[in-house]
């Protein structure tokens, strides 16, 4: 562990951290590196209400907030809830979003920021928040600036971006990742069900689809 290392994860939804980066987050925690999750929304507009239904549009935010806190406790990371509404991030003023994020980064002084790759993250919230996060990091002086690892989700991302720069086999922290995913239980079965192509068990689906995490190293071009 380098001195004063601190990782900040910036995603808009409860469960983004679990599906996208929990294996990597767990590795940092095992090395004793503090990790803070800046979570943009409470996933208020999620669709998975269960069958039979266990949630309504109005109760979902509280349920997901509890799950988010459980997941962060299980990953042993700090949580900051930024209080935006699901699906609306792209309509917020991007400059103000970046300023909001920068205020946290200024205080935490992270060495690494993990966020979505703008334009390659499928959900408009992911794209907008990723762009704001990168803009926030860009506001640091180059010699103070943390690294950025960007998570791309889009199916044909390699066509444009090439292979991801950072590829992690997360087998050694897989159990931690699974625990984080399961903590988001209102969403986990629905989302994993969407990945399911056959009758495989949840564990097997997770192992096959999620045993590996990859990020692109963001490069800030100085003019």
């Amino acid at each position, binding site marked *: 562990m380098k001195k004063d290392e601190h990782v900040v994860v910036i995603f808009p939804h409860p469960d983004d951290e679990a599906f996208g980066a929990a294996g990597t987050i767990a590795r940092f925690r095992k090395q004793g590196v503090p990790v803070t999750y800046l979570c943009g929304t409470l996933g208020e507009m999620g669709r998975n*209400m269960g069958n039979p*239904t266990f949630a309504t549009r*109005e109760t979902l935010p509280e349920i997901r907030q509890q799950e988010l806190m459980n997941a962060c406790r299980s990953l042993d990371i700090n949580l900051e809830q930024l209080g935006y509404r699901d699906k609306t991030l792209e309509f917020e003023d991007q400059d103000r979003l970046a300023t909001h994020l920068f205020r946290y980064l200024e205080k935490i002084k992270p060495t690494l920021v993990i966020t979505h790759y703008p334009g390659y993250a*499928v959900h408009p919230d992911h794209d907008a928040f990723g762009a704001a996060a990168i803009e926030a990091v860009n506001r640091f002086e180059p010699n103070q600036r943390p690294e950025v690892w960007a998570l791309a989700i889009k199916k044909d991302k390699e066509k444009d971006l090439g292979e991801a720069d950072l590829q992690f086999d997360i087998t050694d922290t897989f159990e931690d990742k699974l625990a984080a995913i399961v903590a988001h239980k209102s969403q986990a079965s629905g989302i994993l069900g969407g990945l399911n192509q056959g009758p495989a068990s949840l564990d097997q689906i997770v192992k096959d689809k999620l045993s590996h995490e990859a990020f692109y190293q963001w490069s800030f071009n100085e003019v």
Partner: protein
Amino acid sequence: MEKIKARLIQDYLNQFVDRPVYIHLETTNGAYATHHNREAYNVGAFIRNAQVTFSQAKISGDEKSYRVGLKTGNGWVYAEGLRDYQIDQHKRLLLAGHDDQGRLLVTLELSLQPFTN
């Protein structure tokens, strides 16, 4: 939520007639429709905390798909595909339709107080 009982919902709707009511109206096929199926594309709309006053309210259809129409001073509020309901502790009427995996397809909610956020 429970399966809609049309009589009960009609009675409840009637209590909102001629009073300013906050609505949440939404339909969606999910943010990942295109991602999971190239032939599909994302469709959705929501309006939250619009205040309307309606002079007539009616539920019609059957358990496969109920429809609700609210006649306002100069227009309509309409939702289709409703199957489930809940009257919550704030006396709000929540109506919704879900697919066979429990994913929300449509919801219409009525409240005398604004919804949060």
